[in-house]
């Protein structure tokens, strides 16, 4: 048993508990400790990535209970990749927050660290019920973070977000109950073995449970009929929180990959590829809906919130087609889009601060200070998000387009994705040209000077898109290996037979 596996969960937990008791400590001390915790989580994630890169599965069994009897954490390439994406994003968003966004609520850092912990549990767990618990941890932290900063405008989106997700949790529990009543287990590896053996009337119970799980994950990922809560909630959240939330929809995508490739993949007999014929058209409609929303957005943060929905559609379409190349391409795109969108949220906040009363609304306003720096950051982010060469979004989209085999699905995916990218580009050009080029005479109240940490963290997050291009080769090799590992489900189920105690794993 490798004790590194628990580090990305224990570190933010301990850090968060410390912060709870430090509400009245000097803010400098709280900030130092909080950032140190995030950086340690990043370090632990990188260690796990290097461990996972050998392609084997590592298991951490709580209390040394042999799976499937106890709860296990399972580390594989996918989990390690998601951990690193999350912790890089979390460190940079956290650094942005000490520029002033963390004031106004003494427990901001507590909530932020608990949110990271919930995300890490979700990525590492090998048990469906534990996944539910992880969702609840990250949700309760996100309710608090969404309301952070006060102001009456956040109450209504916060209420909608909380109510919707509680209903989502209820559906999750019903689905778990249905699956448990038939299989008698909720361990993912054990389910992967037991689900193909289900026959007769139990088959429809499993089918109903699995489709309800898809609804829950779809709500988290914000696919079309379940996505209307997102733009309001994300656009109203404080910038570092919105940036961290960029990974939240990807948790839904991760859960879909994990559950549907492992348990309802090609080996699942009658239940093979369950729900994927629904997911493909829904993903394309989500993508189109996101583009329409982006074109109609009247402020910058709403535009970027719709970009989150566009990326979810783009991600899920190749995943639904169920090919190894498609999954690898989707993971590459996930890496690029999460960081880009988060960076754009931070840029939008900086623009809003500089523009005084005009805020981030897409209207003409007097010339803003620091226009050159902000416009360059926005342009790099927009180019990466819309998928123009030479930045990472372009490579992600090319890989996705290349991964589809010829046929009607290819025609649909190519046309929707390419037309969608073009229209997204129009939306960004419109927003950018109005914000940065079209100015009117007048004076705005000089804003507070731009803080170093704010511009450095935003620049770093936007700059990651260039880094992803520079290392596109190794990253692509890694995502290909990840996809291959995911499709080899028999290797995953071997964790049931590996002794957790005394072994050298």
């Amino acid at each position, binding site marked *: 048993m490798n004790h590194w596996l628990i580090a990305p969960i224990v570190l933010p937990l301990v850090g968060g508990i410390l912060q709870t008791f430090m509400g009245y400590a000097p803010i400098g001390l709280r900030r130092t400790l909080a950032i140190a915790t995030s950086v340690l989580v990043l370090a632990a994630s990188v260690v796990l990535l290097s461990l996972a890169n050998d392609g084997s599965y590592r298991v951490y069994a709580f209390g040394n209970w042999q799976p499937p009897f106890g709860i296990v954490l399972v580390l594989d390439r996918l989990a390690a990749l998601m951990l690193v994406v999350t912790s890089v994003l979390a460190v940079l968003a956290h650094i942005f927050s000490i520029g002033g966004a963390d004031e106004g609520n003494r427990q901001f850092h507590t909530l932020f660290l608990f949110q990271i912990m919930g995300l890490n549990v979700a990525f590492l767990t090998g048990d469906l019920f534990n996944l539910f618990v992880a969702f609840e941890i990250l949700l309760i932290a996100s309710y608090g973070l969404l309301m952070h900063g006060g102001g009456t405008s956040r109450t209504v989106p916060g209420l909608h977000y909380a*109510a919707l997700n509680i209903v989502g949790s209820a559906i999750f529990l019903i689905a778990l109950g249905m699956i448990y009543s038939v299989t008698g287990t909720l361990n993912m590896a054990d389910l992967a073995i037991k689900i193909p053996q289900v026959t007769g009337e139990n088959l429809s119970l499993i089918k109903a449970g699995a489709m309800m799980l898809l609804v829950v994950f779809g709500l988290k990922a914000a696919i079309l009929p379940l996505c209307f809560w997102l733009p309001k909630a994300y656009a109203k959240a404080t910038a570092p929180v919105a940036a961290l939330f960029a990974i939240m929809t990807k948790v839904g995508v991760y859960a879909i990959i994990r559950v549907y490739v492992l348990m309802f993949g090609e080996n699942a007999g009658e239940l093979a590829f369950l729900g994927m014929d629904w997911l493909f058209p829904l993903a394309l409609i989500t993508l189109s809906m996101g583009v329409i929303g982006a074109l109609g957005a009247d402020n910058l943060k709403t535009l970027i919130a719709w970009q989150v929905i566009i990326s979810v559609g783009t991600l899920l379409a190749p995943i639904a087609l169920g090919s190894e190349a498609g999954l690898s391409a989707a993971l590459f795109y996930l890496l690029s889009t999460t960081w880009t969108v988060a960076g754009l949220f931070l840029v939008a906040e900086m623009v809003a601060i500089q523009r005084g009363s005009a805020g981030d609304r897409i209207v003409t306003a007097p010339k803003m200070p620091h226009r050159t720096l902000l416009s360059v950051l926005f342009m790099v982010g927009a180019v990466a998000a819309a998928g123009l060469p030479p930045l990472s979004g372009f490579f992600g989209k090319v890989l996705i387009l290349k991964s589809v085999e010829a046929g009607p699905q290819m025609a649909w995916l190519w046309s929707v994705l390419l037309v969608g990218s073009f229209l997204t580009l129009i939306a960004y050009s419109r927003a950018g040209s109005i914000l940065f080029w079209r100015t009117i005479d007048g004076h705005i109240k000089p804003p507070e000077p731009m803080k170093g940490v704010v511009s450095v963290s935003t620049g770093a997050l936007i700059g990651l898109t260039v880094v992803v291009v520079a290392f596109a080769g190794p990253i692509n090799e890694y995502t290909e290996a990840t996809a291959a590992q995911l499709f080899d489900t028999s290797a995953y189920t071997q964790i049931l037979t590996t002794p957790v105690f005394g072994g050298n794993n």
Partner: protein
Amino acid sequence: MEVLFALVIGTLTASGVYLLLRARTFPVVMGLTLLSYGVNLFLFASGRLSTAQQAILGTADNYSDPLPQALVLTAIVIGFAMTAFVVVLSLRNLADNDDDHVDGCPPVKPANRTQEQEETGK
């Protein structure tokens, strides 16, 4: 017993969903509570309904599954916390917007405006 149990779960869930779709926060909170009751009973039933059986394997032909009870306990704790949070959020909504409508303010059509105002007493 199965029929009665199923009817109870069905009634709780149906009333919960009906209340959830109301436009005021208090019925929504009640709806979420009833829904979570229904879900908890449902989870409990996933271990099969049986009485007077032991929870230990090997000493009797049939056994009662103790795991769903652990799952229900977790679900109750989480559901309770979430409900408490939504209650606070609803109060905050009422305080911020001077209205207990879930959207902050009711969508009033111009023609019905006076009637709506009389009904809500505003």
